[in-house]
């Protein structure tokens, strides 16, 4: 009994009327419809969101991503996923204009979708994308000591400096067996075939406030 996907026709017409762009459709094995629409600029996001809200769509989530894997390319885009019965519509908004590379700010859609609040705060802190008139654009999950937009650059500064986590663990494992591998740059467990060391640990923040307490010396108070 494949569900009658009237819902994807409704969404198709609504988006076409709002943004004059046609949505491409793909279907999974069970005939659930997946719509893909790429807007030209950030202005047409609001009418699209309004159209979808009026047709009872529910905002599933938002995914901000860097288009290519280049060193620190600024070609960012945000994919807004909406769910309606058995249809998922993904509206992608590119954040770069042909000429300049600086990412464009994106308008907030919290007026139609209450749960957009946390999603927007998250890509604001993770990808450093600014949001226009968001209720409270504070940090959500990322700690203040980590630089915003940590996910947009492929290898944040911390990777090189802190890359030692896996390597020195393995050195100690091999040393326990008497094999010294400090020099060699061989495969260290979580090696990334693209050659970039995979360890993105935190940058060397100021010395931790608690010096490690040795087991025997009771340090506190009396």
């Amino acid at each position: 009994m494949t569900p009658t996907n009237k819902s994807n026709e409704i969404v198709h017409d609504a988006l076409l009327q709002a943004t004059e762009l046609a949505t491409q459709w793909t279907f999974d094995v069970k005939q659930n419809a997946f719509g893909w629409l790429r807007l030209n600029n950030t202005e047409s996001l609001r009418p699209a969101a309004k159209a979808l809200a009026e047709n009872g769509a529910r905002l599933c989530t938002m995914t901000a991503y860097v288009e290519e894997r280049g060193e620190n390319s600024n070609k960012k885009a945000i994919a807004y996923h909406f769910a309606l019965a058995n249809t998922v519509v993904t509206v992608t908004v590119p954040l770069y204009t042909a000429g300049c590379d600086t990412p464009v700010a994106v308008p907030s859609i919290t007026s139609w979708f209450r749960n957009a609040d946390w999603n927007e705060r998250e890509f604001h802190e993770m990808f450093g994308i600014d949001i226009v008139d968001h209720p409270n654009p504070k940090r959500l999950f990322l700690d203040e000591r980590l630089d915003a937009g940590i996910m947009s650059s492929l290898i944040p500064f911390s990777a090189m400096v802190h890359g030692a986590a896996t390597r020195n663990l393995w050195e100690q494992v091999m040393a326990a067996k008497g094999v010294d591998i400090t020099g060699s740059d061989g495969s260290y467990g979580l090696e990334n075939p693209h050659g970039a060391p995979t360890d993105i640990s935190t940058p060397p923040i100021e010395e931790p406030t608690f010096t490690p307490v040795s087991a025997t010396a009771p340090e506190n108070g009396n």
Partner: protein
Amino acid sequence: MFRFLKLLGKNLAQGPSTDPFPAKEAHTPERFRGRVVVNPEQCVGCRICHHMCAGGAIRIEDNEEKTGYNFTVWHNTCALCGMCRHYCPTKAITLSTDWHNAHTQEDKYDWAAHYSIPYLACAGCGAHIRMLPPQLAARLYAHSPVDMTDLLKLCPSCRQLAAARREEISNDTHEQE
């Protein structure tokens, strides 16, 4: 409220259902995913397990003299997920059902399984190879009944040469008939 009192009464009557673990050995189902164990003979050195391991617990590295490779599994970062066992072509790496793994901090870096697996010299050109495990060879040569023993000692290129020579001989015999 009385229903719960009835339940308490039943509990009291049935007596404790505590499983006497520290005193008696606890039951371990035979499909339990415990410590990783490697069978060096079966290992072909294809590194699929290293590629699959999300915890980065497997390290395969040629030893200095290049006469073989060290295969190390550090149990303290192994997530017991079983991906290596599932994708190993020769079932060399398996998960035992041993879960007694509490140890003190001094043994943290000893809690590993070290195997050193020797390379063999190819009968033809003397290159370093890993002998083809019998059941993998059986699968490869299933359709053409060929005498297995000497083929296994050859590196892939020498095996191709041998296969080409075999074809040539069989073509000559056809022409002679």
